[in-house]
């Protein structure tokens, strides 16, 4: 994985020193909160309901065990023994004292981590497919390009004060696991007919109060032009994005209001003017970065086949975990493992300090020291020999992280919601917990099949509800929590925004409503192979509306 060079080390060290000084001056009363707020936000420090919150970047979701162990250490030493992995492949600590944050950042810097650009109107952490480098279906590892974008966008003088925040995601496979069409820029790494690498470029995706699916403006951009083309997009946005209205300031609104053809031609014109001006990526630079992401030496482990067969017979729960949480690797003797942070009744994405340390040990021992954070708030071991799956599973059982529910209804994405977040209007975590408990039976979950349920506690949509097969949005209405349900959203290569199904439900009603939706789906699907999203796309909202509202006074 990527190792800091001297420049990175010096840059992060200098930033830690600078921000430590700013914190000291704030605590001493030498600068006001108004002066300090933008400085702390540039360093990932928010003020939430109960305390400060520190958001730490996990670039393209990639970690090594030393880094995960450090996150566990921070959780234990400075926080309350746990951390929260987010939908942007980052981690948040919910309780740090401002006075401890310089020490936390120094600890992070010692393992090549930081919290820079995890807030503010700049280019945020670039996200990528969590199976990058391991997936059997990818044309190339997208992370070298994500790293190139990270280096280019870090304290980029022109793009540090954009109209609004800016998110870029990269995938290297046809099957989009990075939700690229919900990002400001989505990049799909692919090969053209000549076998050359390049990108399909999408712009203007986003969620929040105005969800938009990104529009493809380029089917194939040669890899060497990545930075010049992104610069052109950012430049058009920086110049024309709506700075007059925070709610209309994202590039999705500019794309929508300008029209995709017009914005594409503006970007092309800008690009024409700058593409030969020094931003072309030399092949040697790409190769140098790629070398950092060179796959581990995966020696053949053909004994895995027999071992897996034997252990399947030996343990039903291991067998179920294999079916659900283990996916094919490009090397036939290996597999990629999803470590579910969605134990039944647990807060989605939370992990304790001891769990982080234990997972780090497992990664070090059995997974070439590599880990990923997925945007679905799980951890991933991208390279595990099939022969080692049983021992990894047993180790995960020991720390309560072997729930076999990846992609099932209890694998819920949820934002922190009103239990932590100062922007939230309703709680998310308790709703996720109750739904998880209602569908606790793995047999029932597997009968239901793939179902992406996503919950946000406010219109900002950090919980991705717009693109959940079932989405839940919590709002405050007349002093109470009210949960709106959307159906038919999706965040893969066929991205769609869900439709509101009807009037919302109280916190007491919402789990029953979800169960009713699920039962309706089970009753109308053509067979177990027809997923919820496919069935919904076939039949539309009518049967679900009928099931939820028929005969009720509040029927629309």
């Amino acid at each position, binding site marked *: 994985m990527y190792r800091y060079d001297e420049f990175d080390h010096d840059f992060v060290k200098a930033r830690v020193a600078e921000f430590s000084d700013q914190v000291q001056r704030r605590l001493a009363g030498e600068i006001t909160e108004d002066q300090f707020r933008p400085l702390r936000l540039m360093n990932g420090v928010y003020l939430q309901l109960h305390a400060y919150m520190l958001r730490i970047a996990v670039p393209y979701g990639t970690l090594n065990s030393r880094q995960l162990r450090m996150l566990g250490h921070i959780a234990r030493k400075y926080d309350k023994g746990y951390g929260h992995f987010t939908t942007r492949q980052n981690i948040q600590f919910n309780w740090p004292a401002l006075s401890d944050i310089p020490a936390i950042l120094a600890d992070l810097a010692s393992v090549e981590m930081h919290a820079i650009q995890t807030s503010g109107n700049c280019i945020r952490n670039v996200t990528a497919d969590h199976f990058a480098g391991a997936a059997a279906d990818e044309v190339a590892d997208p992370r070298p390009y994500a790293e190139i974008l990270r280096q280019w966008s870090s304290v980029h003088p022109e793009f540090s004060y954009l109209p609004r925040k800016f998110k870029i995601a990269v995938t290297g496979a046809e099957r989009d696991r990075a939700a690229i069409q919900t990002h400001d820029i989505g990049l799909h790494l692919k090969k053209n007919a000549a076998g050359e690498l390049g990108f399909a470029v999408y712009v203007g995706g986003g969620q929040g109060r105005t969800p938009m699916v990104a529009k493809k403006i380029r089917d194939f951009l040669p890899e060497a032009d990545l930075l010049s083309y992104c610069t052109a997009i950012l430049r058009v946005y920086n110049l024309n994005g709506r700075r007059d209205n925070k709610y209309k300031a994202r590039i999705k609104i500019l794309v929508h209001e300008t029209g995709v053809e017009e914005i594409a031609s503006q970007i092309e014109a800008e690009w024409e003017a700058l593409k030969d001006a020094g931003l072309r990526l030399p092949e040697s630079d790409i190769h140098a970065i790629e070398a950092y992401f060179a796959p581990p030496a995966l020696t053949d482990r053909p004994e895995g086949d027999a071992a897996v067969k034997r252990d399947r017979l030996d343990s039903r729960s291991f067998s179920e975990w294999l079916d659900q949480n283990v996916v094919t690797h490009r090397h036939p003797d290996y597999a990629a493992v999803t470590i579910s942070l969605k134990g039944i009744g647990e807060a989605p994405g939370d992990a304790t300090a001891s769990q982080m340390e234990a997972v780090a040990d497992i990664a070090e021992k059995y997974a070439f020291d590599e880990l990923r954070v997925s945007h679905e708030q799980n951890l991933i071991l991208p390279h595990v020999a099939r022969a080692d799956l049983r021992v990894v599973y047993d180790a995960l059982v020991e720390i309560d992280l072997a729930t076999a529910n990846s992609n099932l209804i209890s694998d819920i994405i949820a934002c922190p919601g009103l239990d932590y977040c100062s922007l939230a209007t309703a709680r998310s975590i308790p709703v996720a917990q109750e739904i998880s408990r209602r569908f606790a039976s793995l047999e029932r979950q597997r009968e239901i099949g793939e179902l992406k349920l996503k919950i946000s506690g406010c219109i900002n949509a950090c919980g991705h509800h717009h693109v959940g097969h079932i989405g839940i949005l919590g709002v405050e209405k007349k*002093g109470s929590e009210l949960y709106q349900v959307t159906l038919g959203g999706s965040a893969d290569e066929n991205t769609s925004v869900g439709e509101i199904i009807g009037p919302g439900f109280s916190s007491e009603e919402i789990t029953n409503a979800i169960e009713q939706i699920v039962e309706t789906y089970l009753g109308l699907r053509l067979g177990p192979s027809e997923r919820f999203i496919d069935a919904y796309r076939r039949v539309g909202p009518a049967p679900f509306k009928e099931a939820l509202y028929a005969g009720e006074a509040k029927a629309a």
Partner: protein
Amino acid sequence: MKVLTANRLGDGEVVWYANGAWAETIEAADTVADKAGEERLEAIGAKAAADNLVVDVNLIDVTIVAGIVEPVRLREKIRAAGPTNRNDLGKQARPQTAKAA
């Protein structure tokens, strides 16, 4: 009826203004019921922010239940108690503090 709340600068701890100081629990917060009272608390809050004691100062609605100050909105109940999914965290984890929900 309103009380004055904020977060303490150094550690972010949620506090309420009570008896001339900033208390870590809401029970005994100073309540006001008229415009003049609100203005007095607002002035105290503005000074405490200017003195770098607290940040994010707000007046919030409360009621009195069995002689104890209780916030009206769920958001403020959660600030006063802690996350509703983790009773072991926040003020509710300390002795004799009410739970939010």
